[in-house]
């Protein structure tokens, strides 16, 4: 036995101090290492944001938000971390808004647009500018208003080009460039039938846009779907006459996925004007888009179409479920999942803005009431009536808001993404599966809850991203712990030392409610707090994180001369 025990002991003694067997792994932060990315290079920084811009629901809500309650709205933006927004059909919205601002007969125009939002574009552009927000403007080229006051439509390409260019010119002339992260060439056009025509129209428009604003960022939407993607079923449910939906109702994925390649070919003479490719990812199970599989699809597509390999990426819509579960965001488990997924996106060097679908429904960004709290749609009519509604719109932050608020507050001051990992691994080339592992395990937990059985443990992890201020005088570690127990993460610095107290900003959930749908208008069951940690000294320390928690820990640094 001695022959075995002694070598084993010696091997353990040799390895243990090196940390190879230690769990959790030590967070390594090398101030001299090249950052994964520098958010100062992104026009959509702090990059984590929302699809939608409170310009979708109704004129009443938009006016409440952008005109009559701007101070309150600014606080909501801060508390929901909604620094990046993305209005759909931005050129239509702008055309209607300009006409609305000029018309002498608003009542008549209201009748023309009973459901279309009518708001002077200066109202929202000035709000974005005042609050340091960024918008990814989603344009549509299928057609424009011939006469926006009367609601007539035309699809002539020259008129369409002129309207879109007028819009760009209006942004430039009114000095709103700083709040435009970029332009998106249409919302999910790949569900349509004719990529060649689609590319032909944008090829005519894009160079004219660039002549007005040469530095503008432009993204072209691409799609890579797999069978079973929840978004496919959702789109099919509301689509008719699409090539990729066969007569029998089955899908032709080859046709759907061919769309992107054909669009690229159709745009081949304009790719030099394209800065970004755009993806929408729905579905958080391992095979679907929100996770490493989605990142893999981006890479695979770039291999097949090297024309776009150098483009940066916007994910302008994402959600763990599609329309079949519009209310999935109401749970704090969803917030924890987002805590993971957002860090994974941050750790991808070529991904810039990512936008949660969406800001203005029970997506967890802002809950909005005009008598009942808006769900995107729910065929079962499970809207929540607003108990305290008094005849004017009400808005409040939803359960994802604190996650975005905590992360973006840190990123605004710490734009250098230095390292990323979880309890087991870290580094620029590591694929971290924590988000899908956690998400997958929540199904079993929900089933146990429904059958009144003991809940199996979640396959949680502590995922983190170490960020630094531009001058490397401050460290902020963004963290999520989806375990049901507190974990202490060791941290080691290189090239810098700690120089003061840590400040923890965190959000967690009332015990027993990680899977509960949280009801808007009621006392939030999530708990936001800010605390100080004892002074950190030297190059080593420990970062604690409580159960079911998303947090940032910010610590001053010293000693870096670079």
């Amino acid at each position: 036995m001695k022959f075995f025990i002694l070598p084993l002991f010696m091997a353990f003694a040799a390895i243990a101090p090196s940390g190879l067997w230690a769990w959790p792994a030590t967070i390594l932060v090398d101030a001299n290492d090249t950052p994964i990315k520098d958010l100062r290079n992104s026009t959509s920084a702090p990059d984590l944001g929302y699809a939608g811009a409170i310009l979708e629901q109704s004129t009443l809500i938009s006016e409440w938000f952008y005109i009559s309650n701007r101070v309150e709205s600014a606080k909501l933006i801060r508390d929901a971390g909604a620094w990046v927004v993305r209005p759909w059909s931005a050129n239509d919205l702008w055309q209607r808004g300009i006409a609305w601002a000029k018309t002498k007969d608003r009542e008549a125009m209201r009748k023309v647009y009973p459901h279309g939002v009518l708001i002077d574009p200066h109202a929202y552009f000035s709000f974005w500018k005042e609050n340091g927000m960024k918008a990814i403007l989603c344009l549509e080229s299928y057609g424009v208003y011939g006469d926006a006051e009367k609601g007539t439509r035309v699809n002539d390409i020259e008129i369409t080009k002129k309207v879109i260019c007028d819009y760009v010119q209006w942004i430039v002339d009114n000095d709103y460039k700083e709040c435009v992260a970029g332009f998106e060439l249409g919302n999910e056009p790949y569900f349509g039938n004719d990529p060649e025509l689609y590319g032909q129209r944008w090829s005519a428009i894009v160079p004219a846009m660039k002549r007005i604003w040469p530095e503008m960022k432009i993204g072209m939407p691409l799609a890579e779907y797999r069978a079973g993607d929840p978004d496919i079923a959702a789109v099919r449910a509301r689509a008719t006459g699409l090539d990729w939906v066969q007569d029998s109702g089955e899908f032709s994925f080859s046709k759907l996925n061919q769309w992107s390649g054909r669009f690229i070919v159709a745009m081949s003479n304009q790719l030099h004007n394209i800065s970004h490719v755009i993806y929408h990812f729905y579905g958080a199970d391992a095979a679907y888009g929100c996770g490493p599989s989605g990142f893999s699809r981006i890479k695979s597509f770039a291999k097949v179409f090297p024309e776009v390999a150098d483009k940066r990426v916007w994910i302008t819509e994402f959600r763990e479920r599609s329309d079949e579960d519009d209310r999935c965001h109401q749970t704090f488990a969803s917030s924890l999942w987002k805590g993971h997924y957002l860090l994974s996106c941050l750790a991808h060097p070529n991904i810039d803005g990512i936008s949660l679908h969406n800001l203005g429904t029970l997506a967890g960004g802002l809950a909005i009431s005009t008598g009942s709290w808006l769900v995107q749609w729910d065929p079962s009519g499970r809207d929540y009536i607003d108990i305290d509604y008094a005849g004017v719109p009400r808005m409040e932050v939803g359960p994802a808001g604190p996650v975005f608020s905590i992360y973006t507050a840190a990123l605004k001051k710490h734009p250098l993404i230095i390292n990323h990992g979880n309890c087991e691994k870290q580094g620029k080339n590591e694929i971290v599966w924590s988000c899908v592992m956690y998400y997958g395990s929540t199904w079993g937990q929900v089933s146990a809850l429904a059958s009144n059985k003991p809940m199996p443990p979640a396959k949680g992890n502590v995922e983190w991203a170490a960020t630094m201020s531009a001058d490397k005088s401050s460290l902020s570690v963004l963290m999520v712990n989806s375990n049901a127990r507190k974990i202490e993460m060791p941290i080691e610095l290189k090239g810098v030392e700690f120089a003061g107290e840590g400040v923890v900003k965190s959000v967690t959930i009332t015990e027993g409610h990680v899977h509960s749908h949280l009801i808007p208008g009621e006392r939030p069951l999530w708990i936001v707090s800010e605390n100080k940690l004892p002074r950190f000294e030297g190059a080593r320390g420990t970062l604690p994180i409580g159960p079911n928690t998303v947090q940032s820990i910010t610590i001053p640094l010293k000693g870096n001369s670079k």
Partner: protein
Amino acid sequence: MLVLAKTVRAAYKENVKGTQNMKTIKLKLILALSSAVWAVTVQAYSFKVKVDIGEVAETNAVKMAIPKGSEKPVNRYFRFAERTHPLVLTHGFAALPDQGGSEFEEDPLESLDDGTFDTDAIQKVDKDVEYVIRANGSRSSFVLMIVNRKKENLTAEIELKRGRMFEPVYRRVYSEDGGKTWTTMAWQPPRAADLYPWPIEVPANTIQTVTIILR
């Protein structure tokens, strides 16, 4: 305990009258004490709440007794429940274990108005657990308004005469300091229970509404 007190009093009277011998009196006392012990030990129980969404009650004006100090948050929830679900289906108390259904099945609403209960009724229901079920105008949803004044957590088992339930929405008022301050919390489970009858939590010293949409 009432039963025990009545038995002791009856036994005392019988003893004074000399109509029963001491052996019988002792036996009655032992039985009564056993019942009291059973009542104390089996306080945390589940009770059935049968819901017939098509039911028609005699009145929609029902007032429930709520703990002093809880009026403001409770009224917020109760007024909301009454506004959205104006039709009273049933009003009753939790049926104690082994007693069968709840009192309302035999005598809905009547015995609540005068506040008097005969011994049989006291044996059947738990006056500390009172509930009302209301339906909305289209009878596509109902709300269970329930007050648990006991110190024990209970479970209401919802039995639907027709339809199935979506996830219930709980709106709860509770106190953590013996009734000095009252707090609210509201949530909805992520999925309707797989179990039938559907269990609804009724924790100690709480007032709550549980809103359920039918499918």
